[in-house]
């Protein structure tokens, strides 16, 4: 950053930095969004340049293909919306924890365990109890399983101040191994190493389908969750406590908030919503369970939540952006016969610019004024 040439002798050193970084004061909203808009334009231009240079394809065609991959057919649109719903659901789940500055990167495991609980109900109780009872059991057990998975690290954090990042991360592996174990226990047929579609003939425990739209129920549930989470975080006493604990534990204690209680309660909620995501995946769409049903979305959700600055409504946009790019990238690889990695490169460039723009929203660069005095000192 600084013109860090070695000092020429001990007494004539001048490596005052070329510029220094200061935190910005408040910016008007149009200025902030101007910076972010400029970042997206710059990202698209960079993508176009990289595409032309590396592949020789017409960048406009590439962009068109991304759009087609996302919205090209009715089916593609529904898949996009379904992916959006699941990613958004997991993002909603991690948001209260992050707002409380509890680094829950265990959403992956919490989703898996919720899915596992759902699958267990479907397999063990399918055809033994009425379908309505079965679905109610699935809902309760998936939520409970997710909550427990989120609650364990929170309990240890609250009581013994263990590191939640490491703890939640490790819980992911435990969940994956549990799922792997039960996949073998319940595999159909024996030796297949996978469960296959559960209750394929009876459809017992499959969440109901609204009309002809396979994914509509998931989308509606997540839409309701989004509104609920927005209200919870911004207009309830719990949400207020979460904000205070996240901003300063000392302030929270000073006003008599029981920090331990808030941490555990919030993580139970966070895990429970992850459990719902597992329920929607297993009971709603996949009707089976594998170790990869969460598909890394537990981690992508962290980015969705941060980019939206923990605002559930804005998270609809940020999760849309990520799902859109992902779907588009997949399409590029098939249409242009490029490696799937090329799509990832474009996604990477766009995210780099978007996340990087936040730096310029919060900080500014002050360049050194070249006064005569310093000019002399530089001789």
């Amino acid at each position, binding site marked *: 950053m*600084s013109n860090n040439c070695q*000092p020429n002798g*001990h*007494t004539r*050193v*001048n*490596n*005052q*930095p070329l510029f220094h970084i200061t935190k910005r*004061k*408040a910016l008007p909203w149009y200025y902030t969004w101007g910076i972010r808009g400029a970042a997206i334009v710059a990202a698209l231009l960079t993508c176009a340049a990289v595409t032309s240079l590396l592949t020789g394809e017409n960048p406009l065609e590439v962009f068109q293909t991304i759009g087609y991959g996302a919205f090209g057919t009715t089916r593609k649109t529904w898949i996009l919306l379904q992916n959006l719903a699941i990613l958004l659901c997991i993002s909603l789940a991690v948001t209260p924890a992050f707002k409380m500055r509890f680094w829950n990167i265990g959403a992956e495991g919490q989703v898996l365990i919720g899915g596992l609980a759902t699958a267990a109900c479907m397999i063990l109780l399918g055809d033994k109890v009425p379908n309505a009872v079965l679905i109610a059991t699935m809902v309760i057990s998936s939520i409970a399983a997710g909550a427990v998975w989120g609650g364990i690290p929170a309990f240890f954090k609250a009581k013994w101040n263990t590191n939640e990042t490491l703890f939640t991360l490790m819980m992911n592996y435990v969940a994956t191994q549990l799922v792997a174990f039960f996949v073998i226990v319940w595999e159909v047929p024996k030796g297949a190493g996978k469960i296959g579609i559960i209750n394929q003939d009876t459809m017992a425990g499959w969440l109901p389908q609204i009309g002809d739209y396979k994914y509509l129920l998931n989308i509606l549930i997540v839409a309701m969750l989004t509104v609920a989470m927005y*209200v919870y975080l911004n*207009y*309830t*006493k*719990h*949400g*207020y*406590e979460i*904000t*205070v604990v996240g*901003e*300063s534990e*000392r*302030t929270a*204690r*000073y*006003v*008599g908030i*029981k920090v331990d209680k808030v941490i555990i309660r919030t993580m139970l909620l966070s895990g429970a919503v992850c459990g719902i995501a597992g329920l929607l995946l297993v009971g709603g769409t996949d009707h089976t369970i594998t170790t990869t049903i969460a598909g890394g979305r537990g981690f992508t959700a962290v980015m969705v939540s941060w980019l939206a600055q923990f605002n559930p409504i804005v998270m609809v946009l940020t999760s849309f952006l990520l799902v859109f790019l992902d779907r588009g990238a997949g399409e590029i690889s098939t249409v242009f016969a490029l490696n799937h990695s090329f799509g990832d490169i474009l996604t990477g460039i766009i995210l780099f610019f978007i996340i990087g723009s936040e730096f310029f929203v919060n900080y500014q660069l002050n360049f050194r004024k070249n006064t005569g005095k310093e000019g002399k*000192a530089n001789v």
Partner: protein
Amino acid sequence: MNNKTAAVQMRNITKTFGSVVANDKVNLDIYKGEVLALLGENGSGKTTMMNMLSGIYFPDEGEIFINGQPTVISSPKDAFDHGIGMIHQHFKLVDVLTAAENIVLGLKEEGRLNIEAVAAKVKKICDAYGFEVDPYQKIYNMSVSQKQTVEIVKVLYRGADILILDEPTAVLTPQETDKLFAVLRNMRNDGKAVVIITHKLHEVEDISDRVVILNHGKFVGDLITAQTSAQEMTNMMVGRAVELNINRPEPVDPRPRVEVQGLTVRSSDGILKLDDVTFTANSGEILGIAGISGCGQKELLEAIAGLQRTESGTIRYIRDDGTAENLVGKDPLEIASMGVALSFVPEDRLGMGLVGNMDLTDNMMLRSFREGPSFLINRKKPRLLAEKVVKDLEVNTPGVSTPIRRLSGGNVQKVLLGREIASSPTVLLTAYAVRGLDINSSYTIYDLLTRQKQAGVAVIYVGEDLDVLLELCDRILVLCGGKVSGLVDGKTAEKHQIGMMMTKLGGEAANE
């Protein structure tokens, strides 16, 4: 004295942080073979001055000469290159490494790391000055004093011949302090320049050859320690404050409200912070608490407010009807639910009293948000309160939806005090209520506190400006090292008397 050569000359140094002037055209000389004490109250700019010498800050104006040569120091590395080493108040060591590893950390030496050679060199330095360091001991196994020794050896290892120690004795026991001072004397006799930043007079007398006094960022004096007295240094350190005219009405029907008896508090690492403190705060009266920073003021207020675990003693709250409650062991919520209306304006306004990222309305409801049976929060009353506080206390803000961190220090304090007073307390605890505020805001605060007193509130005012304490408070409790050094009447007490009591238990009478 005259034949000594100046190792460092700082000329007309000015440093500002935003609108705060930390150092204002300060001149300072540091000589070889001498221990210099840099004396001043908190916020007088001592540490800022030395941070510019050690490359942490860069002066806005002024020049630094090292051995007579004009020098630009723009990084700690530059400082090391010029033989300047600073030992900070908060140690900068890596816990899981050994002493020797910490000592060579960051040094760019040729070839492979030879830890035995390092250990041998460390041993040589230790023998030369009388340190005791085991080069192979891990930092996390060390006591505070051992860690400090490692820090000192670290800068010596780098060839420092100008050593700056920022309040080195704050964390040491008296015996450890004696040991440290012995080592510092050895270094001085070896021709090194030693600067110790302090606000403890007896240490200045004990160790230093010369003393430079700063007050509110300005240079006030440069004295030979042997030719001055604690009296004179106190005068210069406290300074002549602006002519204050604080209205001090007689206490209103004073009755015991808070009775503290034999209160003893230890910090989480076992350091004794309050030692058998006993006093009574009356209603309708302002009780001032004077003392050098870190003498237990914070712990005392936090213990009363239910935020600090106590070791022994009682804190009794006495109601108007004579019934009493023990507040020890209760948290703030339990205290409030017993009907004890206790308000607390903490020292750390944005880190404890308020939430910087929340707006005025949300900050107003920090204490009251639980009201009502609804799961949802009602922002109507807090918003009205915020608007009222803004209007009554003339808070300068664009509106009540502005995040509080965007407000200036004085306005932040008005918001905090406004909220605490709005709950009509019977006890009001304030810690450094006017720190960092300009004269006008300070007057507003004094006025508010006096009005609370007239309304029958027991006000406890922890302050650092003795002139203000003497004009504002009815009685002043003086703390020294966590003990009660004395209790004086605000109307009759002398500033010097309090100053002596702050530095020595019981003031002049005691002979330590």
